[in-house]
């Protein structure tokens, strides 16, 4: 769990909060005309490459969440490891099921995966639109596209932070 949580915190802090969200904000500034820069080049360096790195790591994070965080693991260490075998047959599974139910871990994972999948589509779409505009940067469509991207990355960050509270409950 410490490794999983560390990975989650690092992905959220280093890549989503520090890179993707500021990157989308910068793109909004560029396409709305308050900052002069090459939109496509900036997009590639601030969002596309970062997302290529982040997406598979996030997928892995959501895939491994249940096994990494489950309280079942407490039965593998002191003192619960001394529970009689008859108890071990049912208690860890029950505890696990109750935990899943109480914190809606599957729901958290599936929502997270969905957010990642949506960004997997939205990021290349934004790039395509930028290419289509080919230098004509100050268009309303593009501003809306990047506002949407900003909203999605912010939602992802908020979602990644939610598990901190869940695991503490």
């Amino acid at each position, binding site marked *: 769990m410490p490794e999983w949580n560390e990975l989650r915190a*690092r992905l959220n*802090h*280093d890549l989503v*909060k*520090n*890179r993707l*969200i*500021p*990157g989308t*904000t*910068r793109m909004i*500034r*560029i396409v709305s*005309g*308050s*900052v*002069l*820069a*090459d939109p496509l*080049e*900036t997009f590639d*360096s*601030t969002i596309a490459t970062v997302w290529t790195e982040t997406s598979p790591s996030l997928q892995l994070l959501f895939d491994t969440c249940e096994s990494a965080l489950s309280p079942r693991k407490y039965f593998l260490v002191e003192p619960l490891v001394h529970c009689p075998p008859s108890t071990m047959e049912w208690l860890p599974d029950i505890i696990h099921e109750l935990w899943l139910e109480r914190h809606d871990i599957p729901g958290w994972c599936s929502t997270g995966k969905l957010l990642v999948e949506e960004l997997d589509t939205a990021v290349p779409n934004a790039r395509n639109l930028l290419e289509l505009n080919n230098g004509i940067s100050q268009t309303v469509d593009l501003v809306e596209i990047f506002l949407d991207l*900003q909203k999605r990355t*912010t939602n992802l*960050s908020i979602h990644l932070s939610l598990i901190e509270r869940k695991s503490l409950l």
Partner: protein
Amino acid sequence: MLPHLLILDDLFGRVVSGGQNVDRQNLCANFLWYDATGDDEAKAATQKILKPTANAVFFRAQTPVAAKVGDVVENDLQGALEVIRRGWVSESDFERSAHPRWAMVLLDLCFYTGHVTEESNRRTPGMPEGRPLDERSDTYFGLTLLDAIHKNCPELPVFILSSKPRHEVSLEFSRRGALGFIARDDLAAPELMEKALWHHGLLADTKGEFVGNSLPLLLALREARRAGGHRENVLIKGERGTGKELMAHYLHQVASSERERPFVSVNSAVFTPNLFASELFGIQPRTATGVEGKIGLIAAANGGDLFLDEIADMSPEVQASVLRVLQERNLTPVGGRQPISVDVRFLSATNVEIEDAGVGFRADLLDRLRTGGTISLPRLRDRRSDIPLLAEQFVRQAEAQRPGSHERQITKDAMALLLDYEWPGNIRELRSVIIDAINRHADVEFLVPAHLRIGNGNRVTTVVEKEEKPASSTTPALVSDNGDEALNRFLQLENSVTFDQSGAVNWAGRLDELQLSHAKLLARYLQAALAATRRITPDNLSGRVQIHPAIKLITGDSSISASKAADLVKRLLAPIESELEGDLREAYQIAIRLRPKKPK
């Protein structure tokens, strides 16, 4: 002028190489900051902020600033303090500082230290792995920096700019004196930053009404902006000539940015016991008696601000009446029966210690006149670093009132004189001195010490020993801070010299000596003129020798040509060419360059 921000942050302050610090560019784009750091990252930036809101200077506060794989990154408290001090020198040292004053410091909390590994460098170029204590909220290096700033520069406004959750750290940063917290990942962060800067930052008056960047002035302006955020009454204190009415206007403007509100100004000394009621409260019109109505000053300021200047001059009757209005928020015009409610903010000003019992001002009224705080305007002698800017402004204003007038410069010596004086009459007195100098010397291009009548002209001319060459010269030199008087004395001395016959024999054969002495005298005159007309530029504060203006000054002939001026310099200095030093040598070389032919 854009405010200067200092951002102490390991992520944004690091130098990667060739503009790879994408994080810094992202931040600058987000907040619309111009990267004024001047390092390799700033130079390699691939974007241009079209309308920047601030100049941002980034510093990592760690060594090495440009860390690579294998390096060990450590926090650098002393380095950070050194950078802070660049833009935070004392008022007396500020003239010598080439760096603008920090409007605010933005401080990160968590600074990662330790080895830069392949993995950490891959994740974020130039960043180390981090150590356990780096991330503990009670041992954040940002808090150590905050303590050090608070101890060394208590007036310097500091805000926290972090991606950490506010609730985790608010107690730690608040009790250490930070003014607030901005979450970097908050989408509203740029707007919050703008508000924080307006409310807490040390900003010059962008409208140019208040000229200067000295700390005492910036602190007063900040108080005014803070007071402008509400409709409470404000007391303005300051010596005569410090700009109390200007401050009242500033307060009014910062409060009225969204909609127009009336501003009414009145000197309290004009209220006589018989007339104050009709002036302040107005007169109710009466058709039957033919009495014409009159709107009082308070009603005229309804919805806006009433500026009462020199409130210490209010008679007890007026004080009692104003107190009633403040208590009841309404007034009854003279001859009227129905009170009318008013919403007026009172801005009052005084140049006396009005709290002193001897002044006779009601304490209960005073309390109500400063519910929104007191703004103390600094004396000019407490903000000397603003004198060059103010003097320059007054010169330009005077020139603007004289169509076709040529541009004047204040010489270094004259400026030194302005900087040295105590200015009991503050800015008003400075303005008078400049305007007077220009009025009396309409056709000069340089204001020299002799033009400035400072302190009612009661300045002292002194005769002191010349100290430059004690071994070879024992002749007293006339050194004066009042050129007119020095010249008069010199002329008097020269005119009084007679060569009686009894002594004439002793002078025989000493014509060469006399000529040399005369040449030296003229050279000293030229030296003084060269010093007075030095051209001071931002990159050369000691000034550059100019022979043309110096000769214009000596001869009083503003139409003299440059080549003729060069000829004169050659002619004056040729007899003592071998003894020339400093400015005189430079002037002679300039003259030779311009007019290479031998003087006749």
